[in-house]
């Protein structure tokens, strides 16, 4: 188990969980979001092989209505 933070919420994940697994878990379409891992943008082509570790901080953002 590893404890990580997504969008300010603390969650526990299995060992060797990848960003792609996170997207699957929350039913998110990779083409409709952008991800920051520990303050740095993670390019889409790295979602698959980027394994998460304890205390990682993830921000997942999307477009919403705005002016």
């Amino acid at each position, binding site marked *: 188990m590893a404890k990580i933070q997504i*969008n300010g919420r603390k969650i526990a994940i299995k060992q060797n969980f990848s960003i792609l697994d996170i997207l699957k878990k929350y039913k998110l379409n990779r083409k409709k979001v*952008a991800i920051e891992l520990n303050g740095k*943008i993670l390019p889409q082509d790295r979602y698959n092989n980027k394994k998460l570790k304890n205390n990682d901080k993830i921000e*997942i*953002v999307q477009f919403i209505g705005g*002016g």
Partner: protein
Amino acid sequence: MKKDIFKIDKEIFKSRLIVGTGKYKNLGETAKAIKSSGADMVTVAVRRVNIADKKKPLLMDYINPKKFFYLPNTAGCFNSKDALRTLRLAREIGGWKMVKLEILGDKKTLYPDMIETLKTTQVLVREGFKVLVYCTDDPLHAKKLEDLGASAIMPLAAPIGSGLGIHNKLNISLIIENSKVPVIIDAGIGTASDATIAMEMGCDGVLVNSAIALAKKPVQMAEAFKYAVISGRKSFLAGRMKKNNFASASSPKQGLIS
């Protein structure tokens, strides 16, 4: 007659009306209003995904980014760091480079912080972004933004969401006169005629959100804005008559009955 083209950087748009996608009752209403406005560019905000609600509807499912040009904004950012972070993330979602920069300086008026705005414009331009900049109606700042490489200058008509219309026509005119890049009125438009006035003055475009979304019938108001912008543009191109301080009869005096 030369074709009237609305071009920002290298992008060509059919409509000179840009619409915001916030403040609507729901995404269904947003989509209908956007369609009825005839706009081909929409502004969008960047926010955290709600991971607690997997079924929350997505803007992208209602407004197809392949059909509408998404212009990501930095709404809610009060400093350069947050604005840069937001726009870099936005670029990652869509791959777009055209963005709307707005850095607010005060929570009550949502007035732009021009020092942070100028600084951030410079960084974004250097990173290859095409930046449409929300700014004060100060002609000097507008010119500085252009010199820094902004793709469009977007002065406010009045504070965001106020619906007060253009408050300083003189400044807006000076900005239009001095600018080689498009001038788009952003913020403060209250009703369709405000958009017509802006376009008649020679603005290249108008950005509207609240005036449509908060109208009693947003879809109908969106259509009103579509025609208001077309009307104002045509009137500007046609060139208004000279103002006189005396009357001038429209019917000939010749052949009067008595």
